Structure formats: structure tokens, C-alpha cells
């Protein structure tokens, strides 16, 4: 028997959400234990800060320029490389349970397999050649709407709970700006759903059910993918006693003085201020009719309280799955990898949600690898820059198979010295959005404690503009040093290194077939 792999992802979770990364509010003892016994990466970035491109990188081991899923709504081709398919080919049973999102969710034509499988209540359309290499797919997204399996399950079994969830889209199919809770914060909603019907619990229970279906001697790879803590923020109301928003401090990077906040935003690429003022909506990730400049301190607190509760529920769900795995006798041979697809502002800079903003709020992510105890790998913290692009090679390494030729980065290291040996010197992130003529293109490198973002020609920026932050002395990224002549050589070196290492982008960009 070989090592089993449990790959856990959340959606839109910050690095500091977890106790092991300094989080002080949400109690995450299960994830903290993975960190304590594993390798915790303190500078892990996604290769894109929205869902579909980022998840496509996890599956393919490729940068966005290569796999071509440059924005939500651009489907990953059915024949794209998949590490799940390679693991399956070596004998692993494979499953993806929860949020996949390699294909658009808004799909009235049911063109895409994920939605079609949900609509048909199928977990595998083609057992001989399963979709993306997963023997079993049971899928969910952020609520009860749509065609995916969780939506079908709750409609079938608890139809009275369907309308308990926040309505993600408004009557004009825009991301809903309606506020709720005590403060009327956007996308906050009091959800009377029982915890056992909530999608976090459903993901855990479906994962346990799949694991229980396997013979004891079978190796397996299970991607357990929680839709939370992505907005809407509508966890079960019965759990909200855990964190009172009135008791929370404001986040460290919430700039309370509006004059100072706006000066910080004005120092960045112009689309930041455009979004803040509500004049430039570049993508479909946040409510177009909500103006961030109206965000109040209490709304920031309440959004954070709901998020902390969702993070606690995720931790407890993971504990149940880990218990089920132990009870099967697999614990000693189990590798667990934990990460998220991208971050969330949660009030940083007076903003919520996400978009073309390449700062730690959205780019610095939790990433933990708890190797199988039988592998006898010592716990460590790694500060070298790493990315999701290394996950596929890591799964191959754990399974003892050769690194697939299609992956574009080495596996994750097990300690700091090995990071250098493997060549983890930099991590790259791309952004492209062209939604109805509003164009933003960004390319970012993080290395040597600097984050350098180059804008390409777009609606509000032109090539030659950018952002440069010194993470060592300006960890909140308030001071944009792009135009600082004293570090011009450093900036140029970072840019040269970025262009040397970023794969060339296949043009024209593939078509965007849905907003999300």
C-alpha cells in the first residue's frame, strides 16, 4: 500500500484566518495540528486571485498563461492535464467532493460536465474515462442555487431550506449588493438553516461516505473542497453565538482615517481608487452596485465575525473526516495538504471581496503539508516563496510517480534548505480581465521579500506603470515604491526575472463563456 492523499481546499480564505498563522479569533485546532506536525508555508501565493484560474493551476500544475483559464467564466478544456488522472492511472481511487469550478457555474445550456453531472445526479458520466480523472465527483457551490449535487440534495431532502440561503444574484443577475445582518453589510445574511444541512457539513459527510466505500487496501486521492468562507457570508444562524461582531477589533490593515486610506489607494494603480469609488468594476467578483467607500467599521466587523464562524465550521468538519480516516486505519499513511484558492480583503484598505489587487490580502494564503507520519518528515516552517503551481508535482511525489512533463514547477519543499535546492526563488501571479471592455492586465512576482506588479496596457493603466512593495519594512503594503529612483535597479531586476520565468501567454485569450 502507498500513501493516501487528502487535499483540502477552502475558498477565499486569508493566511491569517488560522490559529497556526497567528489568527486570534477563529478556533482552528484541527488545522493547527496539521501545521504543528507538518510543513507550514508562510509565503504561498496563488497564480491568480479568482477561483477558476487558481483551481485550474492546482489541477494542472501550470501557470495561467499555459492552462489558459485567465478568468472566471473561461472553462478549463476537457482534455487539459490533470494530476488526478495521473494518480488514477497508477491505481489511486480519485474523488473531488465540494467545489470544483473548473467550468462556469452560470450554464443554462448545460454545456459543462460539472453542471450536467449535478443535474443528472451522476457522480461519473464515463467510468472508463472519468471527467478530469476523478472516479467520483459530488459538487457544491455557495448555496442552494444551480445544478450541482448539493443543490439537488437540498432541494430533494430539505426544500424548505433552499430559500434560507442568501440570493447570490439580484433580479438583473448582477452579484447581489443587498446587505443583511445587524449592519446591512453586503452579502451578509442571517441563514436559519440547521448546521447539519449546511454545505460545509455536506462536503464532510459526502467525503466520509466516499472513503467508506473504498476497500481498506486501496490507495486514494480525495480533493475535499469547501465552498466557504467565500461570500455570501451566510453561515447557520445557530452558530453565530461563537463570535460576536461587536467584540471584534478592526483588522490591522483597515485604515480608519478616510483621508489616509484614500491617499494609500491613490498611491496604487488607478483601478484601486476606481473600485473604491464605485466608478470602475473590472470583474464579476463583487457587487457592481455596492460602493466600497461606503463600507463602515461595523460592517467590517460583522463580515469578519461571519467569516470566523465559517472557518470554525470548516475546522470541525475536517476533524470529522480525519476521525473517519483514522477509524479505517489509514492515519499513518495519510498525507494532508491544506490550502485555499485565493484570499479576501475582509476590510483591508477599506475593501471587501477580491479583484485585480495583488497584495497580501488576496495573495498570501494558508498552505500546509502534513506528510504521512510513516514518511518520518520533520515539521518545519518555510518562508521561501511557493505557489499552487507546485501542488501537482507534490501529489505525484507523494504517490511515488514521476513528475508529469506538463507541470511547470517543482514539488513543495519539506524544509527551507530544500526550497533553495528545488529552486523556489520566486512565485508568479497573473491577472487578466476584459469584462465588457473594462480591461486590466497585471503580472506579479514575489521574491526576496518584495512584491512587484507590472501593469500592461488597459483601461486605467498602461504598460510601464506598476506597484512595488517591500514586505520586510512595509508588510501592510501601504507605500508603493514603483517610482522610487533609489531602487530602480531592484525593480528592473525583479521585472526581468519575472519575464524570464513566466510562460508566454497563448493569444488570443480563450472565450469567456459566462460571468462566473
Amino acid at each position, binding site marked *: 500500500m502507498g500513501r493516501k492523499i487528502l487535499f483540502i481546499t477552502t475558498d477565499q480564505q486569508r493566511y491569517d484566518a488560522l490559529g497556526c498563522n497567528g489568527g486570534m479569533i477563529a478556533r482552528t485546532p484541527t488545522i493547527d495540528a496539521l501545521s504543528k506536525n507538518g510543513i507550514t508555508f508562510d509565503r504561498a501565493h496563488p497564480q491568480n486571485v479568482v477561483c477558476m484560474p487558481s483551481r485550474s493551476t492546482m489541477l494542472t500544475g501550470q501557470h495561467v498563461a499555459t492552462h489558459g483559464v485567465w478568468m472566471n467564466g473561461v472553462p478549463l478544456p476537457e482534455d487539459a492535464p490533470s494530476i488526478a488522472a495521473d494518480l488514477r492511472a497508477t491505481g489511486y481511487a480519485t474523488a473531488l467532493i465540494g467545489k470544483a469550478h473548473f467550468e462556469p457555474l452560470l450554464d443554462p445550456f448545460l454545456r459543462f460536465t460539472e453542471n450536467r453531472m449535478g443535474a443528472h445526479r451522476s457522480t461519473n458520466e464515463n467510468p472508463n474515462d472519468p471527467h478530469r480523472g476523478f472516479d467520483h465527483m459530488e459538487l457544491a457551490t455557495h448555496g442552494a442555487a444551480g445544478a450541482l449535487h448539493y443543490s439537488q440534495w437540498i432541494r430533494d431532502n430539505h426544500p424548505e431550506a433552499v430559500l434560507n440561503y442568501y440570493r447570490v444574484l439580484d*433580479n438583473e443577475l448582477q452579484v447581489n449588493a443587498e446587505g443583511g445582518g445587524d449592519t446591512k453589510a453586503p452579502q451578509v445574511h442571517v441563514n436559519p438553516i440547521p448546521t447539519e444541512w449546511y454545505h460545509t457539513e455536506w462536503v464532510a459527510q459526502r467525503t466520509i461516505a466516499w472513503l467508506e466505500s473504498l476497500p481498506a487496501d486501496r490507495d486514494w486521492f480525495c480533493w475535499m473542497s469547501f465552498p466557504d468562507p467565500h461570500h455570501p457570508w451566510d453561515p447557520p444562524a445557530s452558530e453565530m453565538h461563537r463570535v460576536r461582531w461587536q467584540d471584534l477589533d478592526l483588522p490591522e490593515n483597515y485604515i480608519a482615517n478616510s483621508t489616509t486610506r484614500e491617499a494609500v489607494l491613490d498611491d496604487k494603480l488607478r483601478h484601486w481608487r476606481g473600485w473604491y469609488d464605485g466608478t470602475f468594476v473590472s470583474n464579476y467578483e463583487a457587487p457592481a452596485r455596492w460602493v466600497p467607500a461606503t463600507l463602515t467599521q461595523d460592517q467590517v466587523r460583522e463580515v469578519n465575525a461571519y467569516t470566523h464562524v465559517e472557518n470554525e465550521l470548516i475546522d470541525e468538519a475536517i476533524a470529522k473526516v480525519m476521525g473517519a480516516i483514522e477509524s479505517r486505519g489509514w492515519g499513518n499513511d495519510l498525507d494532508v495538504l491544506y490550502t485555499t484558492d485565493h484570499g479576501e480583503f475582509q476590510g483591508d484598505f477599506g475593501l471587501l471581496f477580491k479583484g485585480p489587487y495583488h497584495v497580501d490580502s488576496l495573495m498570501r494564503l494558508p498552505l500546509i503539508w502534513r506528510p504521512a507520519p510513516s514518511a518520518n518528515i520533520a515539521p518545519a516552517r518555510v518562508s521561501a516563496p511557493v505557489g499552487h503551481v507546485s501542488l501537482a508535482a507534490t501529489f505525484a511525489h507523494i504517490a511515488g510517480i514521476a513528475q508529469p512533463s506538463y507541470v511547470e514547477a517543482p514539488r513543495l519543499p519539506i524544509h527551507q534548505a530544500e526550497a533553495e535546492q528545488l529552486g523556489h526563488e520566486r512565485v508568479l501571479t497573473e491577472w487578466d480581465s476584459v469584462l465588457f471592455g473594462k480591461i486590466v492586465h497585471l503580472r506579479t512576482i514575489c521574491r526576496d521579500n518584495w512584491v512587484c506588479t507590472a501593469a500592461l496596457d488597459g483601461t486605467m493603466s498602461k504598460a510601464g506603470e506598476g506597484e512595488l512593495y517591500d514586505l520586510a519594512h512595509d508588510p501592510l503594503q501601504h507605500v508603493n515604491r514603483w517610482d522610487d529612483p533609489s531602487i530602480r535597479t531592484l525593480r528592473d531586476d525583479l521585472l526581468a526575472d519575472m519575464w524570464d520565468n513566466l510562460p508566454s501567454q497563448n493569444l488570443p485569450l480563450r*472565450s469567456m463563456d459566462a460571468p462566473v
Partner: protein
Amino acid sequence: MGTVRRYGFVECDADTVWAFVGAPERLHEWFPITSCRVEGNKRWIVLAAGITFEEDIVTLDHDLRRFQYKIVNNPLITFHLGTVDVIPDGPNRCLLMYSTDMDPEVLALPIGGAAGVGIAKVKEMFDRK
């Protein structure tokens, strides 16, 4: 307003391609829908998700090789105009173009995606090898 355009060159004469895509009752043979029905200047199409669109045929011009239609009587869709053009590009080649303008703007994207599938299907059927 959401506006999308998809197109493809078909290696076939424009009259032959138009005879197919300019027949409103044959939409289901190339567009990813499950069925369609035409009565006079009305058309009803059914999507795989079970949604039915009622449409008014507003242009069917065999000289221009242009077909235009509107989705009507749908509480969600406040404006729509879809256009299919077949434009000759020499005696044995033509440009097949599908455009949609609509509100809510985001719905234009999946319709554009479906049009891309449809145009690929027409190429598969008519491209002379």
C-alpha cells in the same frame, strides 16, 4: 448592455450555409439546445436546463443573408437582439457571425459561449475538406 460577437470562416459557399442557418426551425441542429418550434414569426426554444425562451423573428432577409430575433415575454430579460449573418468571402468560403446584445448584460456571455459551440458545429458540417 452586454454585447458579444462570435464568428468563424466556413469553407463552403454562402448560399449553402445560409440555407441551413437561415432556417429558424433548424436551430437545434447546430445550436446547443434541446428543441425548437416555429409558428409564423414566433419561435420557442428549450435549453438543456429546462428553460424555454419565446422569441420574435424580426428579420429573415435572404438577400442580406441576415436573421434577427428577440427573446420576448421573459421577466428577466429586458432587452435582447440576436443576429446571425452569413457573408460571402469568395465563391467557396463565407463568414458566419453571431451577435447578441442584451440586458441583463451577463446573460450575453453564456449565449455567446453557446454560439461558439454552434459555429463550430456548422464548420464541422460544412467545411470542405
